[in-house]
């Protein structure tokens, strides 16, 4: 029996190693946008709880100005600020993973945004770690102000990343439509050469559809222009983003029209003269 002990031990260790490896691999694979988004939602709910406690503690301190209420206010402020940094960090991570999952974004654009997002996340991690070393309520207020300034820059990046995600979707759809348009062009040219069906109407409608695609591209460029113009000190960044989003919706409408034109064109080709 003793002779089998080393073999038995090896089998046990080997099995445990395989099991752990599988578990780690599964966990790593599953960290996608959905998981990151769940993390963000959970963190955000924790932040809201911490924030309401902070508001109460702040009010108590402002009313009584006692040392006890000040200590309580300091504790609650620290907790709230820590969760706030955590919310921004998890949100930016979710945004990064959404960017990774979205097609139609150029590699260059994607990498630039990754770098910027990673840099922001690092900043908030450092800030989060430094918060606990604040010795007084005043120190915490200073630290919070620092994050407030930083968040203005972060917001610009957030809106640009969001705009890029939406633009990516539009680009993908337009690429698909362009492919179909090219196939149709070739087919119509082939029909014209054969001369067994009139192609005048089809060619005119093809131009109409092409025109719609161009308009769609123009609207998308306009949206991107709006997004690049957002500055950290702008007080209405959200408004600018909404404008860009509206332009993208217009761009989308043109894509729908182009698709409808192409479908009508197909009908025309399938019908006898």
């Amino acid at each position, binding site marked *: 029996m003793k002779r089998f002990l080393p073999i*038995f031990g090896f089998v046990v260790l080997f099995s445990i190693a395989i099991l752990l490896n599988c578990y780690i691999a599964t966990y790593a694979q599953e960290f996608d946008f959905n998981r990151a988004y769940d993390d963000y939602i959970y963190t955000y709910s924790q932040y809201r709880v911490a924030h309401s406690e902070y508001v109460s503690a702040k009010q108590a301190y402002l009313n009584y100005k006692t040392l006890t209420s000040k200590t309580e206010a300091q504790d609650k402020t620290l907790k709230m600020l820590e969760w706030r940094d955590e919310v921004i960090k998890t949100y930016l991570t979710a945004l990064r993973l959404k960017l990774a999952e979205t097609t139609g974004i150029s590699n260059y654009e994607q990498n630039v945004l990754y770098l910027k997002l990673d840099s922001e996340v690092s900043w908030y991690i450092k800030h989060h770690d430094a918060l606990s070393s604040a010795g007084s309520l005043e120190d915490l207020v200073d630290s919070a102000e620092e994050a407030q300034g930083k968040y203005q820059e972060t917001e610009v990046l957030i809106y640009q990343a969001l705009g890029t995600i939406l633009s990516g*979707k*539009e680009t993908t759809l337009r690429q698909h439509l362009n492919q179909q348009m090219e*196939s149709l062009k070739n087919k119509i040219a082939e029909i014209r050469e054969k001369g067994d069906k009139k192609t005048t109407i089809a060619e005119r409608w093809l131009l109409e559809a092409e025109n719609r695609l161009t308009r769609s591209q123009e609207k998308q460029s306009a949206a991107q222009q709006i997004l690049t113009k957002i500055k950290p000190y702008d007080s209405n960044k959200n408004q600018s983003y909404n404008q860009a989003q509206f332009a993208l919706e217009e761009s989308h409408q043109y894509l729908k029209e182009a698709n409808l034109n192409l479908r009508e064109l197909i009908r025309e080709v399938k019908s006898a003269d």
Partner: protein
Amino acid sequence: MPTEKIADQTFEEIPVAEEPVEEKYFTFGKFKLKQKMVWSVGGELAGLLIVLLILASLLKKPSVSPKQTQLPTPTPTPFEEEITSPSIYATDSAILKIEADLKTIDQDLQSTDLKEVGLNPPVLDMEVKFEEE
């Protein structure tokens, strides 16, 4: 009359020679393994396998609460008039393929979410002040 002294003996304590138990072997080609040994190692391995399976099920990630599935919004299907007099291209494979692809694109166009409301930035209280307003 001389009495023969009989030595005190407890016969129960005298070891009785055991009958040799015949060992059974499994033979695998040139190898000979005791049956007893094989069964005990096999049993232990089976036990280990069960423990590992239980561990694996415990280590499994807890299932995430099911997300609310978005109900598909009904979209009006465009009225497609039947082609009464088809051309020779009505059954052309290239044309039919483009038609099918355009239908798929149409579905994508209808289902694309261009708002991504869930990704709107979080509303955060960035102003931390301890002064009377």
